[in-house]
């Protein structure tokens, strides 16, 4: 809460982007209405914008430690390195996004219908969406730790990390809501790990996914979380065995 000005500026910026996107979709809708109601898209956009922080890479400290060699101290500590950074990243993402999401969602709920965030399709949908968001958080943290694993190998974080982050932006529905992708593509991309972060919970919220689909979606989320965490742990263990430390 130390940088209220910066947070507020960020929120206003994010709201502005949301409004631009919605204006574009509204105009497109006016030209050729779709089977899917417009409110679903506007809600999608607001939820994406609100929890956008969750997708951003968030731990500059660890990057610095890798680059400067400070990670050697961490290796000496009697703790599970992967677990430590996993929890740290998850906590950063959670607090960062909740702080920004709260004011934005209030603002979006106050906007008129067709511009703002619609109420959840069903109360159960809201609960499931919150649950799904939690699973998504676990999943995205696991993904980020894999990215970090690459950084430990190559030391230069910018290329690989930028690439993985961009794939995330596209396939998580931030650039274009996944529900606007061609229907045949959606069958595949909703199975990718990137769709588990925000897209799956948002579908539950807007009612795009029926409640009966929820258990299946959660299984996919859980499955990816387990797979990605396992991969990350293995990757980090290998890295730790043959880590080259920078610095002197």
């Amino acid at each position: 809460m130390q940088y209220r000005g910066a947070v507020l500026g960020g929120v206003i910026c994010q709201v502005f982007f949301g409004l631009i996107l919605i204006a574009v979709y509204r105009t497109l809708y006016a030209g050729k209405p779709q089977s899917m109601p417009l409110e679903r898209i506007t809600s999608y956009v607001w939820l994406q914008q609100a929890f956008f922080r969750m997708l951003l890479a968030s731990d500059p400290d660890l990057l610095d430690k890798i680059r400067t060699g400070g990670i050697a101290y961490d290796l000496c500590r009697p703790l599970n390195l992967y677990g430590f950074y996993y929890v740290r990243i998850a906590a950063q993402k959670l607090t960062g996004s909740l702080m920004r999401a709260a004011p934005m969602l209030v603002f979006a709920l106050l906007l008129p219908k067709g511009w703002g965030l619609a109420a959840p399709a069903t109360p159960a949908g809201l609960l499931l969406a919150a649950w799904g968001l939690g699973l998504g958080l676990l999943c995205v943290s696991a993904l980020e730790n894999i990215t970090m694993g690459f950084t430990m190998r190559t030391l230069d974080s910018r290329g690989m990390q930028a690439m993985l982050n961009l794939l995330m932006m596209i396939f998580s529905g931030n650039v274009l809501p996944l529900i606007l992708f061609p229907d045949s593509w959606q069958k595949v991309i909703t199975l990718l790990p990137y769709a588990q972060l925000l897209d799956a919970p948002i579908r539950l919220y807007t009612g795009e996914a029926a409640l009966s689909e929820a258990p299946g979606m959660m299984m996919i989320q859980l499955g990816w979380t387990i797979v990605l965490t396992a991969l990350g742990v293995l990757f980090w263990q290998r890295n730790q065995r043959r880590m080259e430390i920078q610095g002197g």
Partner: protein
Amino acid sequence: MDTIKLYLHSMRMLIRSQLEYPASFILQTIAQLVMEGGEMLAVILLVDRFERMNRWEAGDLFFFFGIMSVTFYLTECFGRGITGNFPYLIRTGQLDTFLARPRGILTQVLCSAVDPRRITCIAVGIAALVMGCHLSHVTWTVLKAALFAEAVVCGFFLLLGLFTVEGIFCIYSVKSVELVNALTYGGRSACQYPVDAFPRPLRVLFTVLAPFALTLQQPASVILDKPLFDGPVWTAFLSPLSGIVVFALVWLWFQRTMRYYRSTGS
């Protein structure tokens, strides 16, 4: 003339220094390609689903996207000094060293950085333009080509001006002001679509305050033979100049602000 020579010389040096790490450079360039490719994919998919936007058809929309993208990333590439770490220079007090040298501040800032990684973004923009021309059956004439060049150059200055505003705010507040991003990056996101897609307040914002509509879109629409704003042909050549006007105003504002500059350095 001297200034231009100086600028070109620093660009050459900076590009050479960036190419010293080819692997990192190539990876980052590819990352840029994925980024801009993703943006373009979004437009393609939208066109695929909705077919048109008001009176603009697929080709027109690609053309608008292309002209915005080419202009924006040319600015990001060659104006990197101002679009990139200008606020950083002010925050750390590095701007002080510039004050001691016998050249304009903005010139020196402009000479301080270049970002050749953006070349792939520019390439995506060009691809969009080519697709747009093809689908909309644009017949090129010398006049149209001149108009296009004018639009890109004026758009370059418009964007430099808008990014300089961020630097100006930074001189007052030291902190970098994210809010200005609404005009620069927000302008780019919004104005890759024709401005008549937006409700009135946004339309006024992007026509008067940050005149992307006049600088880039009016020429683009004239090239497509579907003028955005009606008027005789010569006005199409006049409207991009608004970008230069914005830059000039911001430049004057910047000169005034420099009087308030209190260094943060020690």
